[in-house]
């Protein structure tokens, strides 16, 4: 009789413990959304003009490029890798695209074909760096750094001196036009988000990526084609970088190597702030959407608050550390690199 009571008590305790744990997990997974809500409320109170329709439009516009970049990096990070190649590659895409459409430097007028060629070039480059990583067994961090340096060089080389000004009408409409109050570029970003969502949750590829990030050895043993999956991730990254290069050229109106600067590290930050683990296997594209929103809101509000540009970076850094410290799981046995 007594034994039975004892056993049932253990069962009860176990149940409660599990409940507590799942509650904690749920709390952690909602933390980024909480942080976003907190920041929006905070900035609405302290920053003049933050909570307005025009600023909402601004925010949506500013969100577009970082969101696409972070969506590309999300899958790379889910595998536990990192990629820095966008720094040079996005600039390269923008530069050659500007030279192929109607521009100030030459008589080319390839229109959509030019855009397509530039995007395909980006996919080719990431495919090559993917192959170097997979077959050469070199860390993505170093490979992508070298590739970024090479592509930066080619970008500068392509226009030699003065960057080409884009005179194509399509680019002007893209940069200024909007539909239902939402800028065109934001539609592209949202479409990419939907595609990324489908890729992660509705295809086998998405599960494979998660499996590789969680434990590559196990994934290999149950028959996942590791190399092919990794290669596909790099193709997806190429598509995203290509689009980022295009969107950067649209926003700048020039094909300059600078399109790619200050793009990669904020994007990785967005991915992590959203709750995706840098060691791979946890998180996903929905987290990235929230993370990109957090970073964009911080940037936008700091400008509205009139914080000096020298200090902006530092304030942003402090907010990011605080946000990440709150939103990631804590524990004694947890290993964080």
């Amino acid at each position, binding site marked *: 009789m007594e034994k039975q009571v004892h056993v049932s008590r253990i069962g009860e305790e176990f149940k409660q413990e599990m409940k507590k744990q799942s509650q904690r997990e749920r709390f952690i997974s909602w933390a980024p959304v909480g942080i976003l809500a907190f920041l929006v409320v905070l900035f609405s109170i302290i920053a003049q003009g933050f909570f307005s329709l025009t600023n909402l439009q601004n925010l949506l516009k500013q969100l577009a490029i970082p969101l696409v970049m972070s969506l590309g990096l999300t899958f790379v990070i889910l595998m536990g890798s990192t990629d820095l190649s966008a720094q040079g590659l996005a600039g390269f895409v923008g530069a050659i695209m500007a030279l192929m459409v109607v521009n100030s430097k030459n008589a080319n007028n390839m229109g959509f074909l030019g855009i397509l060629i530039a995007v395909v070039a980006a996919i080719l480059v990431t495919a090559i760096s993917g192959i*170097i990583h997979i077959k050469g067994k070199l860390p993505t961090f170093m*490979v992508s750094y*070298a*590739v970024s*340096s090479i*592509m930066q060089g080619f970008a500068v080389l392509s226009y030699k001196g003065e960057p080409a000004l884009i005179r194509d009408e399509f680019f002007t409409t893209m940069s200024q036009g909007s539909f239902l109050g939402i800028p065109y570029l934001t539609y592209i970003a949202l479409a990419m988000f939907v595609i990324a969502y489908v890729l992660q949750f509705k295809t086998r590829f998405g599960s494979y990526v998660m499996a590789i990030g969680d434990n590559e050895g196990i994934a290999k043993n149950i028959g996942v084609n590791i190399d092919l999956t990794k290669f596909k991730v790099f193709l997806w990254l190429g598509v995203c970088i290509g689009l980022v290069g295009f969107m950067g050229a649209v926003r700048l109106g020039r094909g300059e190597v600078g399109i790619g600067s200050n793009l990669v590290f904020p994007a990785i930050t967005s991915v992590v702030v959203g709750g995706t683990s840098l060691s791979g296997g946890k998180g996903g594209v929905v987290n990235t959407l929230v993370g990109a929103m957090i970073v964009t809101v911080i940037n936008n509000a700091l400008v509205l608050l009139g914080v000096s540009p020298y200090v902006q970076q*530092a304030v942003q*850094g402090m907010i990011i*550390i605080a946000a990440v*410290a709150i939103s990631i799981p804590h524990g004694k046995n947890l290993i964080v690199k």
Partner: protein
Amino acid sequence: MESVKNIRNKASMDRETLTKIFSLISTIVISVVFCAMNPSFLGTKNITNLLRDMSPVLVMACGEAYVLMLGSIDLSTGTVASCAAVMMTVLLQSVGAWAYPIVILYGVFAGTMNGVLHTKLGVPSFIATLSTQAIWQSAAYLLSGGQPLSLLPAAWPLVNWAKVNVLDCIPLLFLAALVVLLIYSFVSRYTGIGRTVKSVGSNERATWLMGQNVHGAKILAFMFSGLGAAIGGIFFAVKAKSGIPTVGVQYNMLGIAAAVLGGVQMTGGKGSIFMTLLGALLITIIQNGMNVVGVDGLWQQIIFGALLLAAIFMNSDKDHKGLIVK
């Protein structure tokens, strides 16, 4: 059974030494190529230049190597160096030679802050150091007013040692960097906490279970990285007699590349601090050599990237079939 094991051990040892030698071989090959293109590459004057250019890379790389050995990363070394260079220029004019210990202390503080943020808050080192990188960049801009500061001639006697060459070709600056390297290498090899850094990199949980001070080792590694970066910043300042608020930015990645070329693995647990010397040498030779040979400025970045890729490929560990590389 025993003998098979022995042979296997021996074979893997040979491979390890081979990987080490590869760095040396690639350095020699690249030097010979540059030398064939322009014989003055190995002239006394250029060697002095090369060693002087190499000094900041070397100190920053051997600090970074500590953090890489943990399997973590430090992205703040570049801006810590920039900030240190600016601080140095400002302080040399106001407090004289006290500037040296103050800036060194600043480096220790910056590194320890990274370590504490990473270990106590549980923030991944990538994000923690990325954020402190932004903080120190802002500090450097604020301190310099956003413009390069030049050192007033009154303070020149305090930095003239950087111009001194021992035996006519070895700069004192390089010897100072070498001393830092030897101390770092000694701590890593012969002290308990230095070895703990490496063991945290290969298996953190096991190290913790063994009762080692995991957090202490991590903070030490980050402290060394910050210290190395600050010394690098001092070198920048005394070399150019000026404090430029963006001087260190690209040296962050160069330091990481040098450490990786020296055989430190980014997943942690492998490599030696001393071999960073070869990695730093290789990086500097590539950069310096392109200038000496007269590579067109537009092509330099492309060739640098390609050579870096080739060097990393030659140095990488390719013999483990099941090796997981991220």
